[in-house]
């Protein structure tokens, strides 16, 4: 049940980010200055943490989505759904640890 709640919340968060992401990327069509200026406002620690949270949401939604596909299409999916949730959480940690080390060292590396 909580994986269902988590899937909905991360889904909505990602959708609203996507709307903004297409709009800001569209600034490349306006001018290089406009795009680089707006992207420049993202290059600070607060946005960096927001990006980390966004990737955390995407990675959870991705792995839990694959779990839903497994439950719906794999004969034994239903039987193993709880174990599959553990697999989702473990994979989430395995992906997030190297990502956070890399991303946060760039964000807080001050270069």
């Amino acid at each position: 049940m909580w994986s269902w709640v988590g899937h909905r919340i991360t889904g909505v968060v990602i959708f609203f980010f996507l709307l903004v992401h297409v709009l800001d990327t569209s600034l490349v069509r306006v001018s290089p200055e406009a795009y680089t200026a707006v992207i420049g406002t993202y290059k600070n620690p607060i946005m960096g943490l927001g990006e980390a949270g966004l990737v955390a949401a995407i990675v959870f939604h991705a792995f839990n989505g694959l779990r839903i596909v497994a439950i719906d299409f794999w004969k034994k999916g239903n039987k193993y759904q709880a174990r599959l949730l553990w697999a989702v959480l473990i994979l989430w940690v395995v992906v997030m640890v190297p990502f956070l080390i890399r991303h946060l060292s760039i964000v807080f590396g001050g270069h």
Partner: protein
Amino acid sequence: MATPTIDAPRSGKVDVKYTRRKGGKGNFEMAAWLFMRLSGVVLVVLIFGHLFVNLMVGDGIHAIDFGFVAGKWASPFWQIWDLLMLWLAMLHGTNGVRTIINDYAERNATRMTLKTVLYVATVVIIVLGTLVIFTFDPCPAGAVTDLPSFCTAK
């Protein structure tokens, strides 16, 4: 007291108001359900690739400026990659939010309003994104800053 008899489900004797509607909406909900799963699997590949190339490789997120985007979209490979990602992610996300609106907005008028706003936003974003990918000029005339390196040949 006599025990009431209750017909088994799907026996054909169920009161017509409890049977599922035939026709009308067709198989739209079933197609939407299947689309969520198929597009989801493709999106995992597209978005993980997108995040890896943009956030992990080279200087990571700090490398992103006009030149970075221009350099990528100079290649049809990334144009198609991003186009597929745009369409699949927007349709997947729109269908997800549609489901959530249907679940939580109880008044008919609220549901209609929210879904209208949603569909307008979806069409605007998909059309805008598609136009930007295909009408984009990596070396715009008069521009000087943050151009990709291949523009200097001009």
